[in-house]
C-alpha cells in the first residue's frame, strides 16, 4: 500500500511537470530543455522561502512565477534573438544552475525542521485515519487544480490562439497577432508549471538538491508520450488527463522495475525499449485508421 501511495505521490508531482511539458512539446511543438533548470528553480525558491518560515503554499505560487520568468527568458532568447529552440533552452538551463545555487544558498538544503505544505499545523488537523494519505491528498489537489485550470485556459481566446500557434504559425500572423508573443507566453506557462512541480517535490522530499533537475526533460517527455499515445483514441478523455495518467503509469513502471530487483543502471535501457514499444504499437493503430478512411 505504501508503495502505491508512493507511486501516486511521485506520479502526480511529475504529472504537474508533464502538463507543463505538454504545452511546449505537444501544443507549441517546441522542444524545451529549460525544464532541467526550472524544475530545481522551483525547488530552490521553495527552499529559500520555507526555511525562512515563509508560507509553504505561497511558495507554490512564487515558485511558479519564478519558473514562468525562466520560461519567458527562453522564449525571448528564441523569438527576439532568433536563437534556435533547443539552444535557447540549453542557454537558460545552464544559467539557471547558478541562479538556483544563489537562491538556495547551498547545494543541499534540508527542510526537515521547517513547515511544509504537507506538514504544518493546519494540515495536521486532519483525522488520524487519513494521516498517511495527507501528502497524497495535497498533491492530488494541486495536480487536479493545475489540470482543470489548464483545460479552462486552453478554451479561452488566448488559449486557443496558443494552440493555433503550435498548429499553424502563419494563421496567427494572418489573424494580426504576434506568434512570437504567444510562444513566449506558452513557454512561461509551461515552465511555471514545471517550477510548481519543483516546489511540490522539494516540500514532499523535504530537501533541495542542486542536481535534482538532471534528466527532468526525459521524465516529462516520457509521461507526455506515454499518456498521449496510449489514450490517443480515447476521445472521451482530455489530453491533459491522459498526460497525468501517463506520468503515474511511468512512475509505476519505474517502481515495478525496481521492485522486481532490477538494477537502476539497467533501467534506462528498459525504459527506452518501453517507449519504443508504446510508440510502435500506437503508430501502428494510426496507420490502420488511415486505411479504413
Amino acid at each position, binding site marked *: 500500500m505504501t508503495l502505491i501511495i508512493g507511486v501516486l505521490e511521485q506520479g502526480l508531482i511529475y504529472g504537474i511537470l508533464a502538463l507543463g511539458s505538454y504545452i511546449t512539446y505537444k501544443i507549441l511543438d517546441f522542444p524545451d530543455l529549460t525544464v532541467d533548470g526550472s524544475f530545481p528553480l522551483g525547488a530552490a525558491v521553495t527552499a529559500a522561502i520555507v526555511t525562512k518560515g515563509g508560507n509553504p503554499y505561497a511558495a507554490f505560487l512564487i515558485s511558479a512565477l519564478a519558473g514562468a520568468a525562466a520560461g519567458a527568458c527562453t522564449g525571448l532568447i528564441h523569438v527576439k534573438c532568433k536563437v534556435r529552440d533547443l539552444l535557447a533552452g540549453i542557454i537558460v538551463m545552464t544559467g539557471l544552475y547558478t541562479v538556483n545555487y544563489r537562491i538556495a544558498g547551498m547545494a543541499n538544503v534540508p527542510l526537515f*525542521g521547517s513547515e511544509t505544505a504537507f506538514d504544518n499545523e493546519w494540515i495536521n488537523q486532519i483525522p488520524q485515519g487519513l494521516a498517511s494519505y495527507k501528502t497524497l491528498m495535497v498533491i492530488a489537489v494541486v495536480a487536479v487544480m493545475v489540470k482543470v485550470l489548464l483545460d479552462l485556459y486552453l478554451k479561452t481566446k488566448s488559449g486557443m490562439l496558443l494552440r493555433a500557434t503550435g498548429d499553424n504559425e502563419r494563421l496567427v500572423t494572418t489573424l494580426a497577432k504576434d506568434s512570437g508573443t504567444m510562444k513566449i507566453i506558452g513557454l512561461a506557462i509551461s515552465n511555471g508549471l514545471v517550477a510548481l512541480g519543483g516546489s511540490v517535490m522539494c516540500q514532499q522530499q523535504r*530537501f533541495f538538491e542542486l542536481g535534482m533537475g*538532471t534528466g527532468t526533460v526525459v521524465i516529462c517527455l516520457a509521461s507526455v508520450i506515454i499518456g498521449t499515445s496510449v489514450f490517443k483514441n480515447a476521445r472521451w478523455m482530455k489530453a491533459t488527463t491522459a498526460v497525468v495518467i501517463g506520468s503515474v503509469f511511468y512512475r509505476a513502471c519505474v517502481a515495478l522495475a525496481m521492485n522486481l*530487483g532490477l538494477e537502476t543502471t539497467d533501467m534506462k535501457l528498459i525504459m527506452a525499449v*518501453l517507449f519504443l514499444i508504446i510508440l510502435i504499437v500506437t503508430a501502428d493503430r494510426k496507420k490502420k485508421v488511415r486505411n479504413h478512411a
Partner: protein
Amino acid sequence: MKKNMIAILMAAAVLMTGCASSGSGAGEDTSAQSEASSAEETSAEAADGASYTIGISQFAIHGSLDNCREGFLQGLAEEGIVEGENLTVDYKNAESSTEYANQIASDLVSGSPDMICAIATPSAQSCYNAAMNTDIPVIYTAITDPVAAQLANEDGSSVGNITGTSDKLPVEKQLEMIRELLPEAETIGIIYTTSEANSESAIAEYEAAVEKYGFTLETVGISTISEVSLAADTLLAKVDCLNNLTDNTVVQALPTILDKANAQGIPVFGSEIEQVRKGCLAAEGLDYVALGVTTGKMAAQILKGEAEASQLPYESIADSGLYLNTAVAENLGITIPESAQERAIETFAEISAE
C-alpha cells in the same frame, strides 16, 4: 482499447525479461504484492530474533561509498548478523539521481524492513523522509555534516528515528601532513563540485584552517565532470600542490587530474585510501571500510534492541590514518620524512591502474 492493453502487457513483458536477466531472486511470479508480503514474512521472523532484513540505499556508484557498504556488512557480521545467514539485504543504487533516490526510499519503506541504511546525503534525506511515519529506523553513513543535513542536532543527538556516522575530513591533520611533506609549499589548490554539499562544507573548513599552517588556498568550483580538465589546468598554473576532497565528481575524474599534475611535477594529495592507491602522494584520511564497520556495529545495536536510533548520537571516526604512495614520491622526487613513513598505516609501493 485492446491495443492499449497490448502495449501495457508488452511493457510488462519487457520488465519481466529484464528482471529475469538481472538474475535477482524474485522468481517468475512477480507482482508488487507478493514481494511486499514476502517481506512481511521475513520481518515476522525477525521479531523472533532469528533473522533481519535491511534495505540499503546508496546514492552513487563510487569506490568510497562501496567501501562503506562493505564495511557496514562487515560490522554487522562481527556482531553476528551475517548476510545470507540471518540477514537479508535489499541493496539499491540511485545512480546519483534524486528522482531514483526518492523512488528507492519509498520502495524500501514499502517492504517494511527492520532497518534502512542510507549511504550519502540525498539518500539519507529521502529515506528519513519516507520512513518518517513508520517505525523503521534509518542509519546513515558517509555524510560529512549531519547537522547541516538536518539529520542531527547541533549537539550530535538525533532528530528522530535516525542516526549514523559522519565522514568529516580531518582537515587540520591533512594540512599538517602536507606541511610536513612539502616544507616549501605556499599555495594549495582544490577542485570541488558546487552541487555537492559535502564538498562545500569541507571547503569552508579548509578556508578557515589554511592560514594556521602557512598556506593560501585556491579553489575552483565545477558543475560537471567535463569541466574537471579545464579546472585542473587553471589551478595547476597557480598552486604548489593539489588537494582532493571526497568530492564524488572530482574523484571520478582523478586520472585526468593526476595526468596533468604529474606532467608539471605537482604533487596531488588525496583524502582517503583509494585515492592514494590510484596515485595520490599521500592522504591523512579516512578508511571508509572502517567507517562502515563502525556504522554496522551501531546498526547491530539497534537491530538487537540494545539501543534506539533516536537515542544514539551520530559518530565520527576519531583517528585518521596516514596513507602514502612511495612510487608517486619517487616519480616526483620528493623525499618522505622518516617520521611520516613510520607513522603511515599503509604504504603503497606502486600505482594501481584500477
